[in-house]
């Protein structure tokens, strides 16, 4: 079993648990009211139950999985499927910057971490400054660009954002504790 299918089964199990939780919650909200009409718990119970049933079905399906023909293969014949699969496989090799899968996964983790830090900084530094730092951080630490072009692109992107959203659309972006922009 590959790592991906293990994660997939884990996700489906999680969804099944959420579904069961929703059924329990839904039952608490009242599925059928006294007059026989449906109550606020009806849809949560129904949807939660369906999520649980299909998620369990998916887990069972994945455990007994055998390779099936994809939609494209059925319509175009197996060769086309192979061509598309080859293209897909070629994609996951080393990209034009010479980064392999491991490096790109590290990049992804870095971008996620930067995003979370950015959101945490918004109440302190304000929206514009926090996101400027985000663009700079991604450009310099993740994409390894030179300082000067990174600064230029960041400044341009933020200027356009500021013009469109703050000046034109009058969106009150949070200014944080600094309170200038």
């Amino acid at each position, binding site marked *: 079993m590959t790592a991906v299918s293990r*994660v997939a089964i884990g*996700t489906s199990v999680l969804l099944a648990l959420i579904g069961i939780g929703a059924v329990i919650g839904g039952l608490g*909200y009242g599925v059928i009211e006294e007059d026989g*009409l449906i109550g606020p718990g009806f849809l949560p119970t129904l949807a939660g139950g369906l999520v649980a049933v299909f998620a369990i079905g998916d887990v069972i399906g994945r455990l007994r999985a055998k390779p099936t023909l994809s939609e*494209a293969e059925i319509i*175009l014949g197996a060769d086309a499927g192979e061509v598309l699969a080859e293209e897909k496989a070629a*994609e996951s090799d*080393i990209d034009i910057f010479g980064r392999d899968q491991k490096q790109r996964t590290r990049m992804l983790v870095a971008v996620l971490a930067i995003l979370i830090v950015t959101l945490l900084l918004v109440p302190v530094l304000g*929206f514009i400054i926090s996101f400027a730092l985000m663009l700079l951080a991604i450009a310099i630490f993740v994409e390894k660009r030179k300082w000067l072009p990174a600064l230029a692109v960041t400044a341009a992107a933020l200027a356009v954002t500021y013009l469109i959203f703050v000046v034109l659309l009058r969106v*009150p972006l949070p200014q944080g504790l600094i309170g200038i922009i």
Partner: protein
Amino acid sequence: MFDNLALGFATAFTAENLLWCLVGVVLGTVIGLLPGLGSTTGVAILIPLTLTLEPVTALIMLAGIYYGAQYGGTITSVLISTPGEAASVVTTLDGYQMARNGRAGSALAISAIGSFVAAIISLALLMTIAPALAALALNFGPVENLSIMILGLIIVVSFAGGSLARGLMMAATGLLISTVGVATGFSDARFTFGSIDLLGGIPFVEVMIGLFAVGEVLHQIRVGAAAPIRTRFRDMVISRKELKKSAAPILRGSAIGFVLGILPGAGSTLASFMAYGIEKKVSPNKANFGKGAIEGVAAPEAANNSAANANFVPTLALGIPGGGTTAVLLGAFTIYGLQPGPLLFETQPALIWGLLVSFFIGNVMLLVLNLPLAPVFAQMLRIPYGYLYPIILLTSFVGAYAVSNNMFSVLLVLIFGIVGWVMKELDLPMAPLVLGLVLGPLFEKSLVQTSALGEGNFGILFSSPIAITILSFAAILTFAPIITRRVVAARRTSEATKPKVDAAS
């Protein structure tokens, strides 16, 4: 009909609407062109920009992005064999081969012409069918509406591709997410866990920006950038012979595209694959397919454009989105305070007909832009994704904030971005989830009304002939793919084993 058309022309031909239509189709072409940025993403992140526009102007622009992206997606498919849009995947098979043979110009020209012809045909059909369907749907009560929604969900699931269980699981998850907050008609807060932000429910524009924009970016970072291949343009001229060869495939593609596009959820991707498959079967030029046959470009390109327009039939007439992008557009309707559904044709004729006429104008603009300018658009491909994705992230978050001036929206975008990324990695279909989320409140409303009508008995669903017809259609759609897949698989295996038997005997 002609009054309506006149009204539509009067609405669409104002300077402002023409300008925004142009902005929409140009942005759409660029968005369709850039790998990792599809029409659904484009529309989702640009909705916040349209908040101050008139609803009709905003919708004209957003729709322009949608069908403009169908043109743009082709350019990358032909030039670098990297489809900008899922609907253009099949175009890579012959389009890229044509480009390698030095016929990139012909390939791009025939897709622009094919797309245009298909757009005009499908628009005429859309303008005829949608109002008739809406008029019919106006007589629908809660029972029929409920069955229509069940049908919509089933169709989306059955055409989303992949396993049926997974599609149904995602549709149910969408419905479940829609139940968060205080529902209309009830006073209880559900699944809010004491959070005030959740009382109003989980807003779907934020969910869509998260799933389609942020999720896609995270996915692309892991996939990595593909190497661009440069193709030189010798000419954008297409020979008369090639045009003649493509005429029938374009017409067939338009028809297939329309039929599949009209079914909610089937969408343009399946239509383009189907058109290619059928063309491959009927063409006298079979051997050339996959080696640069112009029919293999003309038919799927006509089909995906035709399907994109046909997608608006259920979206406008029934309020049930045809695909991912129309689901986002439907979300846009509600942001502008419009209740999508058959009533729109009566209450907002200027909006509906202005929008439909703008499709015509937009497609003319696209043809004029794409015939000479495709090589210019192709220059956009030189922008490295490394510069692009931080800007997509910035636009997504600032846009989400702008929708409701709330940091909670920004947080939701991040959460659903991660959810979207996981779904992408695991190949879980997004369209059913989005549809479940969009339809959730309407679904619950019809459930309540139906139970009131039947005094608590859902057997009333089977007392309406229309509802029975719709539900049986849904049942057929659920089981037919399973059966055909079995049959096809069985035939494949028997074909595969046959030679071995011969060899043994």
